């Protein structure tokens, strides 16, 4: 029972085919009864795969790094601030931005299910929905940060946000050093999904340079 995904994998491939059959059967029942329109289902899947995702959150964070007025608005009302940009997928009610500082590092979890800011980060990864993360984040966040390879100064306080209501949280990580004069688009390349959940840190300019260098 290491995590959800593993148990699913370990169901010896038969779960996949069994689930495929059961899900297809249910969709055919719901369609025959006139409850769902398969074309609408197709669009939902497509939106999940293309429109929502961490590219939205990365643009919001990058803008906050270059525009102090925007950052102020973001911390006051993240839904309003995100929608004001016009270039991120529309964000619904009660998005809350949490600013990391040298004093405090924020980390987000949902111990009761898997609440996650879909519009700005996409669908949650398997680890976020898994029993190890949901059980340990509120008790052993430093252990989790270590597993993610995120190193924080020992004096940094860790604040965990358990998403127990319909408020949703977006961590605004600290801007990496060595990025003076970078454009919003360049900065967005440094903002990882995990840095906006609080289990990771943004990439450094050196990491980006390394990635570019390894491209064929």
């Amino acid at each position, binding site marked *: *029972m290491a*995590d*959800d*995904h593993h*148990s699913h994998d370990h169901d010896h491939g038969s*779960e*996949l085919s069994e689930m*495929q*059959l059961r*899900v*297809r*059967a*249910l*969709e055919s*029942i*719901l369609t025959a*009864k*006139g*409850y*769902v*329109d398969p074309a*609408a*289902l*197709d*669009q*939902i899947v497509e*939106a*999940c795969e293309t429109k*929502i995702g961490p590219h939205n959150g990365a643009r919001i964070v990058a803008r906050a790094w270059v525009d102090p007025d925007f950052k102020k608005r973001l911390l006051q009302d993240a839904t309003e601030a995100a929608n004001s940009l016009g270039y991120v997928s*529309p964000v*619904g*009610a*009660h998005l809350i931005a949490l600013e990391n500082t040298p004093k405090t590092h924020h980390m987000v*979890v949902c*111990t*009761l299910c898997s609440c996650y800011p879909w*519009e700005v980060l996409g*669908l949650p*990864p*398997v*680890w976020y*929905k898994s*029993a*190890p*993360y*949901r059980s340990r984040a*509120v*008790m052993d*966040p430093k252990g989790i940060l270590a597993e993610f390879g995120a190193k924080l100064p020992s004096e*940094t*306080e*860790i*604040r*965990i946000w*358990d*998403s*127990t*209501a319909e*408020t*949703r949280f977006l961590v605004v990580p600290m801007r990496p050093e060595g990025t003076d004069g970078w454009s919003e688009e360049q900065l967005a390349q440094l903002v990882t999904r995990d840095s906006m959940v609080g289990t990771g840190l943004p990439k450094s300019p050196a990491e980006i340079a390394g990635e570019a260098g390894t491209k064929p």
Partner: protein
Amino acid sequence: MSNTIHDMGGMHGFGPVEPEPNEPVFHAEWEGRVLAMQRAMGYTRLWSIDGGRASMETLPPLTYLGSSYYRRWFLGLEKRLVAHGLVGEDEIAAGKSLRAGRGLNRKLTPADVPNTIRRGNYERPAPAAARFKVSDRVKTRNINPETHTRLPRYARGKLGTIEVVRGCHVYPDTAAIGAGDDPQWLYTVVFSGRELWGEAADPSISVSIEAFEPYLEPA
């Protein structure tokens, strides 16, 4: 239900967190279909978001733990469709529709999809003034309802501080059982790690929950 297997905060024994590099959005085609069916049926407003959560929380514990996220969604959806008389158990067993469907209030069309991807608003007009204000010390109630609640076990009977007043929101505990929105004030309440986990806990850790007013009493 309240004290069921979904309430995992502070449990031991599940092992390390294992991120998957370059994880796809869906690991199999059926996962996307389950998500889409869930959204489309949720659009009919026959149940609330917390009614949906409750149907998964009440899966047998071994089924819950032994199922992937989307398998839980599927099992919860099947259960809800049957409970609301939308699909018969005989139809689930047969794998096909055996009768005409009943009428729905509304049905999701492709044109509606963009609005369902955007989150709904759960804030409601306040029926009364907020009982607590920022910096108030509060104690979470020790409640153990047999029905759905969003007060995790690890945060019951604990001393905390109101950090933010979030407005008045749909109350999950009533919405989940079809007893209406019953709007309640919502607060961010922060606890020290030591209050939650004891004197051996790391003093540099604090944890907050989003707590509805009925979960709280003055401290």
